[in-house]
């Protein structure tokens, strides 16, 4: 029973998100209404069957209980909104647009034709993305540019031997997208739950702590003056946490660490003594706002 309730709550949650984001279903309902009100036959036999299928499928997806069956059918991998792939919304809207234009508009004067085209475009504009195509935002573009420079160094290092990288998530995720030659101590599924659906692995407490530590270091370094950085570093017990983490991180064969430049001094006061005790040689490379430590 609790499994059913889980699926039901997942379905209703998915429905809320879907209808908040997608207004094309409203247009679809308007199309059904339009065809129902028509006195003259506009559709072909194939069009009729397509409309009936879309109507029935749409009704089944609008009812939470039948939609829940669909969510179970398409497996837990996909959310509710993917069920709407089987409702031919785009096809029906286009079909209706052609029929309306052909029967109502085509034999009129040019003013009415232009007005009807503008009205159609307005409906799409209003129900869709308001003309805003998805593009990469400036911050992400900047980050990608920084990572490109870092990657040139990393790829060069990788030719000399296996690299296992520990870095802030913005660098880790771009690294793995650009090259498979560099391994990561943990992947994008650490911070992105959806990316974790593809494997059975769960991260250990050590790795979770390592992720939290380096993200705290990244957060502390962002837009803060050096004095505040020092205070935050001490308040967060960053040095103590790192000392505890370091042996475990090194046991996972991490041999490349990237940290923000703002925390370099604080990091090195902890890092170098520990490393030199273990007899590990460290090379530093400065790249943009980060420092790369290569352990050999």
């Amino acid at each position, binding site marked *: 029973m609790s499994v059913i309730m889980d699926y039901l709550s997942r379905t209703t949650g998915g429905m809320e998100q879907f209808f908040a*984001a997608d207004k*094309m279903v409203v247009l679809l309902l308007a199309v059904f209404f339009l065809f*129902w009100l028509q006195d*003259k*036959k*506009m559709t*072909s036999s*194939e069009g*009729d069957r397509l*409309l*009936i*299928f879309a109507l*029935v499928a749409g009704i089944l997806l609008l009812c939470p209980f039948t939609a829940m069956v*669909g969510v179970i*059918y*398409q497996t837990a*991998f*996909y959310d509710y*909104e993917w069920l709407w*792939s089987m*409702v*031919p*919304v*785009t*096809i029906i809207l*286009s*079909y209706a*647009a*052609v029929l309306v234009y052909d029967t109502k508009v085509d034999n009129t004067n040019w003013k009415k034709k232009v007005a009807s085209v503008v009205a*159609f475009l307005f409906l*799409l*504009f209003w*129900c*869709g*993305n308001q003309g*805003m*195509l*998805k*593009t*990469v935002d400036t911050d992400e573009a900047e980050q*990608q540019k920084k990572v490109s420079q870092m990657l040139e160094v990393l790829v060069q290092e990788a030719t000399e031997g296996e690299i296992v990288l520990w870095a802030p998530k913005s660098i880790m995720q771009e690294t*793995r*997208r*650009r090259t*498979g*030659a560099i*391994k*990561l101590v*943990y*992947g*994008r*599924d650490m911070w*992105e739950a*959806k*990316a974790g*659906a*593809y*494997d*059975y*692995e769960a991260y250990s407490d050590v790795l979770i702590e390592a992720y939290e530590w380096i993200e705290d270091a990244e957060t502390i370094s962002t837009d803060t003056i050096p004095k505040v950085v020092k205070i935050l570093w001490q308040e967060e017990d960053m040095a103590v946490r790192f000392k505890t983490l370091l042996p475990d991180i090194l046991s996972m064969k991490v041999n490349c660490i990237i940290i923000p430049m703002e925390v370099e001094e604080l990091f090195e006061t902890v890092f170098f003594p520990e490393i030199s005790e273990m007899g590990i040689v460290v090379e530093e490379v400065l790249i943009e706002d980060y420092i790369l430590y290569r352990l050999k």
Partner: protein
Amino acid sequence: MIGLLWICLILFPLLLGSGILALFYGKNTTYDITFSESYVLGAIACIGISEVMHLAGYFLNWSLQKCAGFWGLSLGILAVAAVLVFCFRLKGQFGTRIAFCKDFKPEKTVTPFVFLGIVLFQLLFIFCTKTIHTDGDIYLETVQSFLAEDGIYKVLPLTGQVSESGVPLRYGILCLPTIYAMLCSLFGTDAELLMCHIVPVIVVAIAYMGYFYLSGVLFDKQDFRKRFLFLLAIALIILFTDTGVFSNGYNALHSGYLGTSVRNLILVPYVFATTLERRYFKAVLCVLAEACIAWTLWGMGICFAIIAGMITLNILERKCSKLNSFMQIFRDKEDLT
């Protein structure tokens, strides 16, 4: 090599699809061989052949280079065979059976040009804009790991580390990352360029072929004005719903390489077209193709659900007079009295 890659991506689906249509419908003189259907069927055939190579690499531990070599060779042989079958089965009928040759008449309308203008904009947008990464999408990491390890799922894609448990079987059998990795391996192309910019252009182009084929089912095949109007409306919806993932834009403009995008853009319109035509064998091919590219319940996915629904509707339409009356709500109201 990029030029050769483009030529292969444009030519191979067409050759394979035409050969398949000629093989099964060559002697059926009432069945026209269309470019649009050839492309869609050719894409499905490429998925099928790639799945075989992928499974060989996954279960038999073949290296990626070995898979890519055999894949390229088999596609080449099959393409040549397809051309021979096409020429043999349609000997003397090229002018009468190939729909584009016999039916197309240039209409005095701007619709085809407006449509082509929008499509060109979309294809340039896909090719030229920076890659957008969708949450939960690990295709690029997977392809990069295949290329780095010269093998299929030897390591976890997100970390590059070896894993005892590996990836789930239902995910591991999906062949799209292997197709992209094999193309990179054969043509020496950068994975991001191929996957995020070249493949989506091909997917969207073939999608419009599929919609054009569907328009021939919904409207009179000779009525190119309505068919191009239909395509124009589709293109506008895809453009204006770019942020939508599922029912409308299908991520066409920035993630056309995803299995769900290929399914929604290419397979789903073709399933509707074939089930409306009551040609169920071709629809079944879509079910198999979907099982190879998207996570399904043991092969039963969106295409299967659509076929089941459409077959039920087709049977009911023929047998049930009550449904015919119900369907007349979309027809002339005078018939109800």
